[in-house]
């Protein structure tokens, strides 16, 4: 785990989730979602969702192509929240029930 803080100071309360969820690719975020329990996904969701809008407004001031590392981490954490939001809000399960096996479905990015 990184020694210093991974996230901007005003989002310090999300640090416990940073090591797990600051993931740079859809592939990595999907894998993390699939290898989490529903309880873990719900805990992450409950912690981040209430201030998601605040985080977006904070990040919107930074250029997408050239973000400082902590802001980039924050964006990747928010992307992870989007990835898992459907599991919490719609499926009530890490993966859609009655769906095609996710391992058979390749994700290129």
């Amino acid at each position, binding site marked *: 785990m990184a020694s210093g803080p991974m996230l901007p100071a005003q989002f310090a309360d999300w640090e416990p989730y940073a090591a797990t969820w600051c993931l740079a690719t859809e592939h990595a975020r999907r894998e993390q979602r699939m290898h989490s329990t529903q309880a873990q996904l719900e805990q992450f969701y409950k912690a981040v969702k209430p201030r998601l809008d605040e985080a977006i407004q904070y990040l919107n001031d930074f250029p997408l192509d050239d973000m400082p590392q902590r802001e980039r981490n924050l*964006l990747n954490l928010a992307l992870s929240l989007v990835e898992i939001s459907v599991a919490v809000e719609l499926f009530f399960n890490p993966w859609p029930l009655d769906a095609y096996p996710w391992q058979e479905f390749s994700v290129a990015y």
Partner: protein
Amino acid sequence: MGATEQPFITKYPTAVPAMGDGPLPVAPYISREFFEREREKVFKRAWLEVARAEDIPNPGDYRVVDIEVLGWSLILTRGEDGQLRGFHNICTHRGNKVAQQKAGNARGFTCGFHGWVFGNDGELKYMAGEEYFPPGTDRCKLGLKPVTLDTWNGFVFIHPQAEPAQTLREFLGGMADQLDPFPFDRCTRIARYEATPRANWKVVLDAFQEAFHAIMVHRASLPKSAAAAPNPSAALTSARFHGPHRSLSAWANPDYRPPEVGMIVGKYGPTFATAKDQFPGINPNRDENWWFDINVVFPNFFCDTGPGWYFTYNFWPISENRTRWTMDIYQLKAEHAGGLLAQEHTKILLRDAVLEDFSTLEATQQMMETGVLTHITISELEIALRHQMHIIDQWLAA
């Protein structure tokens, strides 16, 4: 729907071909003999979408495309002159493959067998052992074998015939007219998915050319968005027939609101769950509660469009019961983090909904193959399936 309610009416702005209303035969989905006829009469005679031009942007860039149904391996390459060309990936000496990598950048291709070298314009540049070949062997006639290739709005199509009966533009006809205003050139690919289900290519394709299944298959991912009073069966809001192609507009429940994260990110850009905006090249019929357009380019390519995004499917037959399916999602470049998160929401929801779509394919194929059913019963909600079989029958008879 109660017996007293009026069914939701789908609009047909173009002429509906006389296609009958009987059940459709199961044999085309399971028969090897039928598949062989499709290979000869459909896939060997149609323009086939194989890439985006931006996949091969610079001189020397190339990409190898395998087309199982034709048994072909092709090299798409951009020459030093900027021209995009297609060649069979076969050395004209004794037939080895000349490109070994799937993609790259090279001025040419050196065959790994005896070292003949071909330029990325196809010409045979160096012929190892030239002095030992019989007199009259003409190096100029031993270039890579070209394949017919054309592009439309950056979509690269090949044609299996040297001289197709129709140009690509003629073939696309009204479908191209409808889609031409869409700014394909301003979008970039943000996702690519691939799977190889054990199912006939039409079983896979059919799962994506009607909205009816949303009431069941997507009851978790998109509840109440595709169907609600006054349209409880998710009838299409409109459908157009453009020769062999078809374009279907899905209906959206105007009262639908996505769950919380979708609402939050939806403030910063269009999401799949909240696609209401006007945009060029979409909603051709200006339908009121329009959701998105399902555009089926015959025989095996989809280009589905919405405000600021589009996604494509390719359904590549491998055998009568095996299909290689790919999905690509393209979006306008996000301007800030909020826009990017809205795009991510679109992508994730689409991806997981497609996983639901896939849940029925292999079971359907397996049960069709029992022979218990000789026909499937088709409603107006599934008019695209009827049109597809109607067109395939025409091509097989021609």
